[in-house]
């Protein structure tokens, strides 16, 4: 059975400004992290689905000692966001560290990196 949302497709879509996830064909749960079977009901009927990209901050940190792979970023926010669909995703938080609050509303943006992109979030409405 083919993997429903390969990373290459996720990144290609994100680069174009569309956040993709999966929706379970059995229980309807959304998944932000692509997987072969549903976390809620274990059904393999996972279908690619566009996600709103809008949600609220669940937990976050500000990385001040970056890995060699990200040395040029120096320091940056990252966190877990719960999207309107209920799925949670992890990404960069492009907000000053002291301005982040629990439940803060954010929206997804692509952050260019190399030939691809990583998922980022900015304040919603900003």
């Amino acid at each position, binding site marked *: 059975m083919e993997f429903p949302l390969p990373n290459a497709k996720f990144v290609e879509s994100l680069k174009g400004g569309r956040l993709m996830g999966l929706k379970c064909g059995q229980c309807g749960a959304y998944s932000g*992290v692509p997987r072969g079977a549903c976390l809620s009901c274990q059904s393999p009927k996972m279908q690619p689905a566009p996600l709103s990209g809008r949600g609220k901050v669940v937990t*976050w940190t500000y990385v*001040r000692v*970056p890995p060699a792979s*990200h040395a040029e970023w120096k320091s940056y926010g990252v*966190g877990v966001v719960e999207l309107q669909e209920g799925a*949670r995703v992890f*990404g960069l938080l492009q907000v000053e560290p002291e301005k982040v609050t629990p439940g803060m509303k954010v929206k997804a943006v692509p952050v260019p990196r190399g030939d691809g992109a990583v998922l980022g979030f900015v304040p919603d409405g900003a």
Partner: protein
Amino acid sequence: MARVAIVGAGVTKFGRSPKTGMELLAEASLDALMEAEMTPKDIQAIYVGNFIGELTERQAHMGPMAASALGIPGVPAVRVENACASGGTALRTAFRDVAAGYHDVALVAGTERVLQKSTAENTEYFATAGDAYYESAAGITFPGHYALVARAHMLKHGTTLEHLGHVAVKNHKHGAKNPKAQIQKEIAIEDAMKSAPVADPLRLYDCCPFSDGAAALLVVSEKVAKECDAPVWIAGSGQATEALDIADRPDPSRIRSTEWAAKQAYQQAKAEPKEIDVVEVHDCFTIAEVAALEGLGFFPAGKGGPAAMQGETYVGGRIPTNPSGGLKSKGHPIGATGVAQAAEIVNQLRGKSTNQVKGAEIGMTHNVGGSGGTAVVHIFRR
């Protein structure tokens, strides 16, 4: 199930070492053999715990390398990689094979050598325990992963930075009594509170150091154990996974793999949390010790924060935790950690630890991979 015991343990000094990972492994293994009054010829199988040898030493395939280093090519050998739980998983794998009757004497040896690499390089290598595509790509580090747990714990349960600082103070006080520890130095709560932020809200003193080191155990069948001095019995073993990605966890303040692995170990050992006399938990970060104390059932969910501040987790307290100094003070040579935890509990149950819990009869180890993706729990009786 057949009874299985540990009859020898060896641990190198932790900290910066000019020796290779395999040289450290050989030293710890020979110490374990000497303690058990055995020779390499007695070993029937080898289980090596190692996380990132390919990245830090360009060395994989450490199973046969260990057999060669001990002069016993021929014995089956395997490396077990389960991130920071590689050592604990190697112990559990050996335990199962001996219990199943495949071998009577197994060597479990964990090793890691990382300090010849820079902090930035090691930070990148350690992050390989997370999801490369949906976590590490965005630059999250291991302190970052646990910072997400810490923030969630603070928001939900009111845990404070002072609570976390006291975990570091306690583990340094314990580690100051351990001659094998990397940082044999007591610290004050002010030192912890003032230390530089690494990944908010975690500060430098909330984090364990990078370390080189090795540890080894001889795991044997009941038949062999009965001919050895002071065998320590493996009474229960459990292992479980948590969703690897923190985004996939319904409650990021909680590490369910610890709860599930502990349940298995308690059931197999027919023991309860209140019977445990001493525990070595995986305190790679101060918040990790708090989450461990809750997940293992020593404190209700959300109530583990003040444990160290209130003195409950010191030697002499209600549940002595990390008498060795834990990862925080003793050090965290990753593949060796789960093995060294068991070595400390073996010494405790034999009454010969350098930071002895008086009269300890039942001990526990808790070894975590990543930010909880793996948890391995063992219960030991003398």
